[in-house]
């Protein structure tokens, strides 16, 4: 006796399994495109990183030699080392966007006349293109006519050439990147603050919480989802940093501002780049770094769903 015998003869297989099939049907287009445009290229990159290929001729299998070269570049403190180091600096400093965004959001979360205008003005840098941000900051830093040198000139300092100094250049670009990223975090927190429960604030106030302890114990816990999203987008943003570097310095001076993403582009796709396999190897390293964070994000989301 099978189960199907209980169901009337004229019901089709599809009808019987509708409940369990429907989600997969709806997911199918998404899964298909994700597999073709994301999953497959990941494996292709892995594969390509084992070859030496100039993009034109025959690809030659070289095993792990590309990774070996990367290792030696790391040991010799060459380009790969610089790129990796800069990526770490980016990751650490880019996170400043979160507290800065929170601060501005708290500051703007009040009802005064015209607050919407102020909010839009603060949000503005996120709306304009990264290319424009890069250009604006290049002029700001310009050693000749830049605003920065004019300002520090008033207090008798300078002139400094931020984008021409190999020790300052990465920090200069990160500062430019923080401008739009702070605005992004601000908007996340502003929406989060809208959802803060006024009754809890009221209760907290009755218990004598104010100022710092109110923020720490009542507001911040309720902003956890916003903080989580801000953290995710900032980490991903830091690892993807490419456009600002390309616009402001092209990785210079003498390669001291490149990060992994830019280095990969330089090696594989730029004017002087012909090493597809080597570029793929760098991309794999970048992917593994990202994978650490992505795993952490997925894991904490999973935990959240389970209700811990």
């Amino acid at each position: 006796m099978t189960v199907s015998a209980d169901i009337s003869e004229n019901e089709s297989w599809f009808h019987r399994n509708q409940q369990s099939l429907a989600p997969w049907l709806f997911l199918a287009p998404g899964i298909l495109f994700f597999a073709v445009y994301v999953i497959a290229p990941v494996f292709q990159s892995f594969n390509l990183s084992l070859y030496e290929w100039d993009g034109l001729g025959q690809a030659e299998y070289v095993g792990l030699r590309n990774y070996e070269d990367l290792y030696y570049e790391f040991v010799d403190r060459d380009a790969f080392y610089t790129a990796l180091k800069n990526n770490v600096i980016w990751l650490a400093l880019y996170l400043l966007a979160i507290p800065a965004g929170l601060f501005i959001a708290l500051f703007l979360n009040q009802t005064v006349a015209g607050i919407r205008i102020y909010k839009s003005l603060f949000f503005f840098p996120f709306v304009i293109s990264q290319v424009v941000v890069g250009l604006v900051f290049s002029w700001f830093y310009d050693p000749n006519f830049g605003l920065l040198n004019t300002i520090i000139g008033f207090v008798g300092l300078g002139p400094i050439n931020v984008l021409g100094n190999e020790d300052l250049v990465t920090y200069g670009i990160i500062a430019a990147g923080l401008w739009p990223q702070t605005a992004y975090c601000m908007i996340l927190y502003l929406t989060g603050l809208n959802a803060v429960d006024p009754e809890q604030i009221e209760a907290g106030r009755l218990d004598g919480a104010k100022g710092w302890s109110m923020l720490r114990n009542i507001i911040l816990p309720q902003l956890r989802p916003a903080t989580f999203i801000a953290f995710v987008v900032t980490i991903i943003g830091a690892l993807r940093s490419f456009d600002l570097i390309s616009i402001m310095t092209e990785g210079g001076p003498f390669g001291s501002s490149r990060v992994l993403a830019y280095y990969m582009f330089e090696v594989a796709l730029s004017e002087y780049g012909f090493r597809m396999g080597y570029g793929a190897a760098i991309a794999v390293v970048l992917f593994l770094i990202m994978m650490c964070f992505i795993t952490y994000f997925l894991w904490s989301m999973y935990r959240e769903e389970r209700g811990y």
Partner: protein
Amino acid sequence: MHSKMKQTVAAFAVAAAFAAPAKAELTGDLTIFLDTSNPAPRATMEEMIGRFGELHPGLSIETTVIDREAYKTQIRNFLTANAPDVATWYAANRMRPYVEAGLFEDVSDLYAEPEIAEAIASTKGALTIDDKQWGVAYTYYQWGVYYRKDIFAELGLSEPTTWDEEKANCAKIVESGRACYTIGTKYLWTAGGWFDYLNMRTNGFDFHMDLAAGKVSWEDERVKQTFMNWKELIDMGGFIADHQTYSWQEALPFMVKGEAAAYLMGNFAVAPLREAGLTDDQLDFYQFVKINPDVALSEDAPTDTFHIPSNAKNKEAAREFLRYVVSAENQTIINNGDNLGQLPVNANSSVDDDKFLNQGFDMLSNNATGGVAQFWDRDAPAEMAKASMEGFQEFMVKPDELDKILAKLERARGRIYK
């Protein structure tokens, strides 16, 4: 009857083929990809193609102009996937990857034609790889020192010819509160120009080419000598400060405002300098000075070229187009002062009456006995060019790190040339 008809047709066909070999009317499509995206060269090229079209009304020509920088990466795609019939590019090592991948058509037959062979012999070498020619040049230009004549007059200086005079001049210019040379090294290649000249003058053309081909160590004493000469100029404050932040265009105002006295550049710098208000009384040119008296003078003269991709569909028309491009009359027109303002590649065409073009033509014809180089990033393989030009930039900012930089370049050499 039927077979007789066929014979007649065949006979006619043969007769026709013999009767008009060169005058055969070209038909079909001709697609041309150009990287001449700046307004002036673009107009010149489009006019030239227009004139070619009038000569061949049966041909339907389609021209695509691609941004000059974007072209450098796109060429890799379109040569394999969707090849035009004619494409612009650069000579020497810059075309090597495409020649080796079999993507450029061998056009040695054009160089064998009597009316072409003699006329464009001067650029033949730059387009030769493995004893075959892979394209034709359509223009080239000289490099040299463009300087402010009025500043030189004010300080009582004259055009130098030796390294000592050059340094003495520079010392006086620095004393007057100016920099001797403007330069913008953000995009690296400008420093390659300085290296080209210093190394060719210190060690000669052949040594320079050996270095580009990876046959000489970067830690060789002779290479160090080149950098030591360079260091003399850097140490006396010869170059403008913060050059690593500027593009070559952004470095022009220093010369226009008189904060720097000279610019080692290609002839294309003349047009923007004139537009910025410098007259021919203020602006002049001299050949880069002799450093090592035992070395014959050699020059940089980058050549821009046309090629036929191997995957082109209408190669017959493409060849006819190349013939037209290098013809004496067309060369005179496209390289005159109103158009490209550069030097024609055809020996029978005339150089426009412009003082810089005349000086450049004279210099390259009579005073470059050592040889003519393309440019560092066209003579050296792309990867080495990139790594070394980064090193040149670093050296110009931190001249004391020379040993570290050369060690890095030597490591790169070990990896790149196998």
